[in-house]
Structures are given as C-alpha cells and as structure tokens.
C-alpha cells in the first residue's frame, strides 16, 4: 500500500492507495498517530483504497480515540462502495465523519479548526 501526504494549513490529507491489512497497518498507524500527536487534523482520502481488514479498522479506532483526547479532528472521504459497505456493517460509519467528496470534507474540517 502506498501512502501520500498533502498539507492544507493545519490539516493533513493522507491518501491510502491499495490494500490496508496486516502487512502494512503498522506503517499507517505510525504516520497517522504522529500527525494527530502533532495536533494536526487528518483527512483520510480513500479513493484508491480497495480493501481494509480488521487491522486497518483497528488503526482508525485507535486514531479516533487519540484525536478525541487532543484538539485534532479525523475524517474520511471518497470511500469506494465496497469499503463503505465494510464501514456500514461494522458500524464504523456511525462513529466516523465520512464525506463523499474530498473538497466537502476539507471545508468541513477547516470550519471545525477555526
């Protein structure tokens, strides 16, 4: 899996490209928690995410709890249908802010960061 990074003020956009599973979740966890611990709000862009396993969901849950303890915000955008289905059946869609489009997500996070 490839990770991409983009900065928009205090918001970091992390792009996930490929499969997020036991082979790579540690790298994602380290990068994501590092951003949150620095106080950045994070938008996880999932356009090219094709698979997420329980290990991947575990990282998101950990990050959400960490973000709640800081002033950071965490959101996801552009989930493919299959990934959205995983979020729906695992009820992760009820605990995460999920947006269909990157621009909408970015604007929302910017508003929340003001």
């Amino acid at each position, binding site marked *: 899996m490839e990770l991409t990074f983009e900065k928009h003020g205090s918001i970091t956009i992390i792009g996930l490209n490929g499969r997020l*599973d036991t082979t790579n979740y540690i790298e994602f966890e380290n990068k994501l928690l590092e951003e949150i611990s620095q106080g950045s709000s994070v938008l996880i862009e999932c356009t090219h995410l094709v698979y997420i396993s329980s290990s991947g969901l575990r990282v998101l849950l950990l990050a959400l709890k960490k973000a709640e303890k800081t002033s950071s915000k965490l959101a996801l955008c552009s989930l493919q249908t299959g990934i959205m289905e995983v979020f729906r059946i695992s009820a992760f869609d009820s605990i995460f802010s999920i947006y269909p489009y990157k621009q909408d997500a970015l604007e929302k996070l910017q508003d929340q960061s003001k």
Partner: protein
Amino acid sequence: MVHLVQFTDPNSREMEKALRAIPKCPGTCIFVDIVSSTAVKYTTDIVLWGRRLNNTFNFISLLNDFPENIVKGIGDEMMLYIPDEVLIKKDTINDYYSLLEEIYSTILNLQRFPLQDMFYHCKLSIHYCTDVYNVTFLKGFNDYYGRDIDLTARLMGKTRADRLVFSETFYRKVVSELCKKGISKDQTCLNHVSVKMVEEFKGIPKPVPYRFIDV
C-alpha cells in the same frame, strides 16, 4: 474435498478401504464463541438480543473472509477449519500470522467500540492441526474429524471474554513466519502473549502446551 463414508454393512471391506484411503488435511481450526448472548436472550426481547448477535456476526471479519470454512455452528458458537491449501491461496490473510493478527484486531475493535449495546464480546481458541480428516458420515454435509479438532475444542475451556487461546503448535507456526519476514514479535499482537502454560485436558492423552492473549 470432503469424503463421504456411508455404508450399510457394518463390516464392509469397502468401508475399511475407503476409510484408510482418506488423506490427512492439515490446517487451522478455530472455535469462536460469542459471550453473554444467552444471558441477554433471557433478559430482553428478540430484537435487542438478535440485533447485537447479527451485528457481531457481521463484525467478525474472519467469518466474511472465510465463509466457505465455517464448518458448523451451535447457537452462538462456531467452528471454522481452514485447510493450508485454502489459506495460502487467499489474497489477504494468507498465513498464520495474518490470521492471528486479524482475529486479535477484531476482538480489540469489539472491545473498544465506543457505542454501547452494539456488539457482544467474543472468545476464541486456535490450533494448528495435522491429525485431521475431511470426512462426513451424512450425505450433503461437510465436516472435519480428528484428534486435533478435539484439542481445539478443549482449549475453549481456557478462554473467557476477549481472550484468544492458542496451542503452542500454532504459536510456533506464527513465530516461525515472523522470523522469516523479519518482523519483531514486539510489533505484533504477540507483544501481549502469555508465557507457555501446560495442562492436561479431558480425553487428551498428553499434557497440552498453550498460550493466550487477553485483549
């Protein structure tokens, strides 16, 4: 492939021949039990009890990743058997370490999920089996028999909510894979593994070494 054994003559020579011809089917046996659902069943109505059970079954990714390998279920306890030849062909979760890490993550996610009354907790036992036969005595059914299946079932006696119990045999398989991949145990769920325990179990002739992880 399941081997059907069904003969009307109890002393059939053909039956003996058929039984001797069944090959062993090495793989991973997993027992999953959903905790507290029976108690909830008796204290609430079917909707509250059933919804949580539905949600929990959906949440256990193993059941979605290996639907063909759910051998049987009795109430909220299930047995999965994943033959090695099936495991290695998977795109993801195609080795013993991935299997364990995914199960650990699932239990952790269930435990830490922030909304109440959405899911039940789980407990599991895992064993790497060599003494197993893919055989059924009932037409149209699939089943696995063998001493190692019995052992996996016995290990369930050492589980409790949010605990994974696995045989030393399975543990060694995982550790061997981590060594080959150059991954430190500290970076994985084995960071939380217990010391080796050794106990005698009913019906198992030798003491059984096992370990556990309390999530």
